[in-house]
């Protein structure tokens, strides 16, 4: 058995160096050469400043923007570092609500949000993704129904005809891959950037 001790040390260190350093560093080099934009995090710049990532959702509260899904991400409480406070779309601490199917807290939160949305647009059914938090708290997308639901509010806030906003939503709707994989969706940040571009003209 003693002859097994040398490989347990030397082979472990050698394989660790290969898989833990050589492999990730080589991948970093190749990825940055082949796919520099993705490797950096698919960042979006506007006037030379980073406004976010195409893949990471951000919080929108103003009426003139389409809103993403509720987010359950947290951040350390600035007053007491042992506690956490709600910090929607905190992209340095991803996570979901973890509220279960019989949670009273979830039932109350859903009711409150549904009532708010019904008041905003009484004519349409409330889409489920607009009141549920995502798994990461950073979901960049909403369903096409959730985008259409918000059209009247956005159009009113921007003094734009509803049809024009609706059309913009349709042109930003991505379908399933090959008509099969995934779900139809609208990237909220991309849609809002498009709205701002129209406004700038």
């Amino acid at each position: 058995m003693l002859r097994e001790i040398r490989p347990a040390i030397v082979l472990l260190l050698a394989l660790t160096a290969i898989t833990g350093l050589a492999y990730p560093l080589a991948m970093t080099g190749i990825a940055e050469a082949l796919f520099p934009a993705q490797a950096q995090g698919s960042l979006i710049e506007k006037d030379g400043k980073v406004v976010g990532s195409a893949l990471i959702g951000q919080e929108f509260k103003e009426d003139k923007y389409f809103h993403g899904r509720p987010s359950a991400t947290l951040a350390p409480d600035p007053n007491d570092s042992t506690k956490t406070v709600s910090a929607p779309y905190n992209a340095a601490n991803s996570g979901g609500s973890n509220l279960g199917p019989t949670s009273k807290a979830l039932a109350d939160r859903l009711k409150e949000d549904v009532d708010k949305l019904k008041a905003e647009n009484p004519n349409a059914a409330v889409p489920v993704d607009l009141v549920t938090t995502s798994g990461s708290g950073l979901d960049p997308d909403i369903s096409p129904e959730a985008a259409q639901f918000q059209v009247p509010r956005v159009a009113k806030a921007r003094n734009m005809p509803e049809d024009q906003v609706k059309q913009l939503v349709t042109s930003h709707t991505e379908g399933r891959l090959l008509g099969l994989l995934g779900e139809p969706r609208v990237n909220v940040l991309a849609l809002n950037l498009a709205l701002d571009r129209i406004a700038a003209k």
Partner: protein
Amino acid sequence: MTVIGWLQIILYCAIVVALAKPLGWYMTRVFNGERTFLSPVLRPIEAGLYWISGVDEKREQHWLTYTVAMLLFHVGGFLIIYGLMRLQALLPFNPAGQTAVAQDLSFNTAISFITNTNWQNYGGESTVSYLVQMLGLTHQNFLSAATGIALAVALIRGFSRASMRTVGNFWVDVTRCTLYVLLPICVVYALFLVWQGMPQTLGDYVEATTLEGAKQTIAVGPVASQVAIKMLGTNGGGFFNANAAHPFENPTALSNFVQMLSIFAIGAALTNVFGRMVGNQRQGWAILAVMGVLFVAGVAVTYWAEANGTATLHALNLTGGNMEGKEVRFGIVASSLFAVITTAASCGAVNAMHDSFTALGGMIPLINMQLGEIIIGGVGAGLYGMLLFVVIAIFVAGLMVGRTPEYVGKKIEAREVKMAMLAILVLPLMYLGWTAVGVVYPTAVASMANAGPHGFSEVLYAFTSQTANNGSAFGGLTGNILFYNLTGASAMFVGRFFMIIPAMAIAGSLAGKKTHPPSAGTFPTTGGLFVGLVVGVILIIGGLTFFPALALGPIVEHLAMNAGNVF
């Protein structure tokens, strides 16, 4: 449930089955030490590794030596991770300035990664440096996976050899698995993931100013290289806290589909390796069929339950299924499918929060793990777990007809059956025993995030997941406290090694036996009767051990929900 949803599930199953044969052919060549198309590049590296570490690749090991070598390898792996986590503040590649990780959390995490569990009591982006992610966690993702595969191959050799004292050489199996199987696939796979949008950088976290003028710190890092092996090696430990739900860790529907395929690819191919090595590929297909029956049944239940939604959602006229904790780009079907796959295998990556699943939708992941993750299972671990159940099933069949049971030409006798039962019984001891402690110990009770039966499910899930070396969680539970860090580590340790050692004892005992040619009285182990028998034995043993615990958790929660209760 929709037609498009079921088409995605069928396409997934078809590709997994189609990949099993070519990958099984390639892996058989690798573990038989034959030349492969990668040999011109990799053979010099392989020979160099043996030379510096003093390994004689021609010298085979007795099962006990093989097991001791594996254990020594893990002691070293444990020390590397523990040391790196404690010292990360002093080491390079730490742009976010992470401080030393606490002793109990480092201990839990080190055990978690050497046992291929990857239970996360730490939050990736908020706790550990890039160096720990690469040198500590990525390396152990490779090596714990390679170890599992090596052990499965050693057990297969036990079945396929006759009258021999040895089962292979651990160092050679681990090295060849890492170099010829895991690394080449990961290189291509990681680049594919970057192309899909996954970051791969050593740069700082990005400071963005949102359209509404708020500050957003965006965590990035060398994600793709780690995610590739995390899925392929059924490790599951996420780069980010939200794991594969995080858009950087799973950017598109395509990246999600390929990640699901990579969880099952090696485990499914190992059934083919088994068939090839024992000289009849149909033996492998029969085992894959047992796994397939249990898998599809689980997918159907979870998909139905999630698409159906909850009473709370129905009361508010919200249709479209239970989207709490799920991402829009995956929707109900890809989230349900992923949850069943990740717990059938011992992966534990999640693309949706299992804690927010419906009671029945979340019960299937629990059952998958409590059965010992034998439905494809962890790379290697799934096959040797399943072969333990096969031993029991063959024994039961032998009792029914009054003959000494045989499997692939080997007589299954008292020693093999005792070892198989030991491995199968030690798992419930851990997850039921610690759950019983967890629901009465006040500090542990205070860690539950949900009240009512769901809180019980959270604790049961935590210990089940760790015992089964899965690593997924009902994430609301605050796991990072001394109690859970220590009890969890013990569950992961026992769940891994008390399954491995009996399995290796069986390998050694079988390798020494003669092979008997099949006769008219031999129970055929390639047909539907055998598949049905094994499925039955699995469900009976499983049902008797954990059904009472499920009744206290998900089942009573489902009934309470239908009665309109919230907690």
